[in-house]
């Protein structure tokens, strides 16, 4: 009968443990539904050249797909880092998400252009097929053209080293040296 007294205590301990674990879970971090799948088909215009591009325009080698827009403040924050990555040889494709092409071209002219090409997605339809729910988002395409990783939010050195560098071993070491040189 004595053991029975401890039932509430045990129940409390279990519940407290679960709730404590819950504190360290980030509810905004959603699993990307498209992981492991090929980049969705699209037929859109390229931002600068105005030519028709499709998924075949993306080269079959590890690359980043960066979802950005001129209305997105965080995109401005991460822009210099994208320029640094491009300089180190990381191929970056842009998805200009629900933006005005005129403004987007101005932005690239003013701030520099880290992108190999930019998919114009004024309606957000490519973004929808990709499962984008805001900007910035950055995806990794592996050599097979499949989506290997998604990052929601600003891409910076810490995030790149932690989650992205394994697809870009050459750039990773250069990036590390680059950031040391800056300090």
């Amino acid at each position, binding site marked *: 009968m004595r053991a029975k007294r401890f039932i509430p205590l045990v129940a409390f301990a279990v519940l407290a443990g679960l709730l404590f674990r819950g504190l360290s879970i980030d*509810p*905004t971090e*959603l*699993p*990307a*539904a*498209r992981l492991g799948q090929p980049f969705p088909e699209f037929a859109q215009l390229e931002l600068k050249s105005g030519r028709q591009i499709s998924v075949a325009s993306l080269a079959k080698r590890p690359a980043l797909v960066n979802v950005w827009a001129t209305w997105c403040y965080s995109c401005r924050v991460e822009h210099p880092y994208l320029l640094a990555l491009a300089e180190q040889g990381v191929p970056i494709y842009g998805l200009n998400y*629900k933006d005005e092409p005129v403004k987007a071209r101005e932005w690239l002219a003013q701030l520099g252009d880290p992108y190999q090409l930019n998919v114009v997605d004024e309606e*957000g339809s490519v973004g*929808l*097929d*990709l*499962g*984008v*729910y*805001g900007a910035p988002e950055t995806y990794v395409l592996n050599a097979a053209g499949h989506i290997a990783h998604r990052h929601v939010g600003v891409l910076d050195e810490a995030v790149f080293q932690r989650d992205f560098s394994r697809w870009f071993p050459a750039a990773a070491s250069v990036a590390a040296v680059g950031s040391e040189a800056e300090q």
Partner: protein
Amino acid sequence: MKIALKALISATICGQLWLASFALAVIETYVFSSPDLELRYHQLSQELRCPKCQNQNIADSNAPIARDLRVVLHEQLEQGATDDEILAFMVARYGEFVRYRPGVDRNTVLLWAAPGLLLMLGAAGLLSHFRQRPSARSTDVTEAEQAEITRLLGEPRD
């Protein structure tokens, strides 16, 4: 009279609150080719979760992504897609997360089973509680006690 008035007032308040709950939904105009499609639109838009704002369905959310999903939902309904096809389309892009009633899989099986398990746990608890305590609640009295009870109850009050 007073009671009737009170009831009338509370009924009015309840009615207004009920109406206000509809006002929460985003106001947009979609034209549906049939009332049936409109009904399904309302059902599905309340069952689909906004990926950006997380604790709102796409009917209530003002987020741009929720608006996009409503547009897609309307399009697909008009094109004759079934509910299952629409849900599959959404899940393919945003994962099971996008459904407020996710399908049963490895991640959600506990979620689906929990109410049943908790109910059984509660039932088992109640059962053992009442089985262990019949003697404590015994109303057996000795003959002497019964006589005393009768005497006390039988005493005239004055």
